């Protein structure tokens, strides 16, 4: 392995850039969990849907210049799909008394994963596609970066900021935070928690769809492109703490850094292993994740 200060700085920057993009995906998973108390195993498939919408919008309708509008359409599209699917698939878990809710959620979301992936193969074929991007290469210090990656990075930060404002400063955000703390109390206050569930699910999958749209010019569009990103998302929520929004951001940055530095300066074939080593380390030191809270049982 070659080592130089410039290479180190380049690798750190590269890790931080990809880390923010990982965080966007993790945020969707952790947000849905904090409200609906459900792990959505099909999160990667919403990433995939977002990337396909981006490709179709840019390649066939809008053109490369309007990539940002296509990204908004992709996020809105996945939001709508989430809003439609949640009452059908997730709501029955709460609407009817049910033992083994977690098992139900796991089976339903894994079935959804398989359905969406098969639909993608049936509709778009197994080939790879890439939405055009006319953004020039940008130099960040000594690191050259695809314009699309820088745009994705900035948009991801912007999305995280908007998400924070919505959660902290709006009535819906207040209701969502209350539901995350105590569903029963919110329900007795006259708030429709089922509607909140649908909104939370839709916002979560829209974040995944936005990730897919932003990363489509970089990591391409194909039926299983969300699989690896989902794994990263779950690694991040273990590192940062399930249900913690700052944890998702810090976890994403840490994962991106560890993977990049490990691949560049330790051994490249084990790039994916370094993330798991970090997960194990965090689980040993802080079993609830860096920002996770210890669960309270009645």
């Amino acid at each position, binding site marked *: 392995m070659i080592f130089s200060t410039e290479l180190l700085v380049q690798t750190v920057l590269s890790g931080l850039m990809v880390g923010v993009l990982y965080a966007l995906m993790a945020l969707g998973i952790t947000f849905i969990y904090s409200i609906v108390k459900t792990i959505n195993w099909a999160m990667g498939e919403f990433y995939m849907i977002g990337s396909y919408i981006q490709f179709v919008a840019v390649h066939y309708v809008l053109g490369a210049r309007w990539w940002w509008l296509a990204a908004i359409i992709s996020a809105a599209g996945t939001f709508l799909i989430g809003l439609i699917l949640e009452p059908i698939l997730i709501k029955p878990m709460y609407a009817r008394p049910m033992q083994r809710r977690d098992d139900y959620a796991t089976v339903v979301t894994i079935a959804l994963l398989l359905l969406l992936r098969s639909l993608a193969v049936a509709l778009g074929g197994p080939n790879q596609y890439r939405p055009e991007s006319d953004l020039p290469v940008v130099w960040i210090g000594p690191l050259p970066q695809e314009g699309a990656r820088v745009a994705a990075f900035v948009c991801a930060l912007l999305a995280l900021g908007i998400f924070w404002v919505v959660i902290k400063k709006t009535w819906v955000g207040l209701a969502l935070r209350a539901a995350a703390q105590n569903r029963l109390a919110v329900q007795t206050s006259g708030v429709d928690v089922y509607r909140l569930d649908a909104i939370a699910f839709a916002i979560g999958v829209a974040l995944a769809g936005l990730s897919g749209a932003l990363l489509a010019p970089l990591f391409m569009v194909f039926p299983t492109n969300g699989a690896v990103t989902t794994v990263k998302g779950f690694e991040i929520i273990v590192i940062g703490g399930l249900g913690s929004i700052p944890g998702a951001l810090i976890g994403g940055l840490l994962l991106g850094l560890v*993977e990049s530095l490990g691949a560049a300066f330790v051994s490249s074939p084990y790039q994916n292993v370094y993330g798991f080593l970090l997960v194990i380390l965090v689980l040993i030191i802080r079993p609830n994740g860096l920002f996770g809270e210890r669960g309270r049982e009645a």
Partner: protein
Amino acid sequence: MQRRGVLGAASLLAVLVTLGFAPARAQQEPIVFGLITPLSPPGETALGQLAKRGAELGVDYINEKGGVLGRKVALSVHDSAGKNEQGVAAYRRLVSSEKAVAVFGFIHSGVNIAVNEVAKEMGVPTMGTQTGASDVTAKKYDIAFRTHAVDAPRAAAWLGWIQKNKWKRISVIAETTDYGIGLAKETEKQNKDKNLGLEIQTIMFDRTTTDLLPQLLQVKAFKPDAIVNIGVGQPLDLIITQAHTTGLLPGAQMVTSYDAPARPQFWQLHGDKGVGINFIAFYSPKSELSDLGKEFAKRYQAKFNEPPVYAALNGFANAIVFAEAIKTANSTEPKAMIKALEEGSFTGWSTSPLTFPRAEGPLWHNWSPPLMVLRYATKDQTPATAEVAYVLGQ
């Protein structure tokens, strides 16, 4: 009374079956060829589709000519998705349930090698359509055949191209699969054995990695004259994209380890960044075809409105070779077919006849196509118009 009637009919049916009606029907049943090829990700789906197209046209051709031993041939297609376990399950099903007598279509070496481990017990011969790792045939299993270039000539092709251009610093970036590891090792071995004096940097990566920027920054720091891209499918395209980002391309030369850029979607994926890419090819539309190859090319063009590429040609040839082997052996019994394949000489798409001798090492039961390096000098070129940058052996 009614019950007695049903029992009587059942008894009559049993007698008819015993007396030979069932075997007579079996005589009319088609001979099954199995195709195990990647048709969904993470497999190399484009090549899988091409191999399938070729195999289907091959079976159509055989049936138009009267079939084999008076029976039609049917093709049963199974998706390996590039996963070893899925390929093995498909082989077991083909042989046990569908009674396939020959299995081909393999694109991923790992799948082919894993299937061969089962095939050596179950006995039905396999043929690697586009699998390059030595171990596909080097284990010298009776059932293992292949119509593709193995590691040694392939590495020799890009090393010859590098020597021709007098380059000295070479980066090999390869995935950690049987295919990638085999080719990376073979490149280093030939550099040493042939005393080529090249300075080689080898970087391996996991093929599920979505971001190869850290690896390519290392490559950039090495300042290579040429880069050998040994990714398959999505990683291959990711390396091209990110090599441009880091500024490695277009400064250095890049050669891909197989003919992925011959796929129709190459220019959609890469646009201007595809210009200057070199790739190993086993067939160029400028290559001379056998009469059978010309017939196939005509049919392929008519059906798909594009000229055939190598994976399709090989898928076609595999079906034809197995059909001819059955005719020669006058049997679908695996041992007789294997003997016919070993001793026969068959016509495929190339003017060079296909033979499968019991040779040493990976050349066991192996027919190797001609090897060349093609180069895209301008955007939207096809393999037919690409420059021939190097031909192995010339």
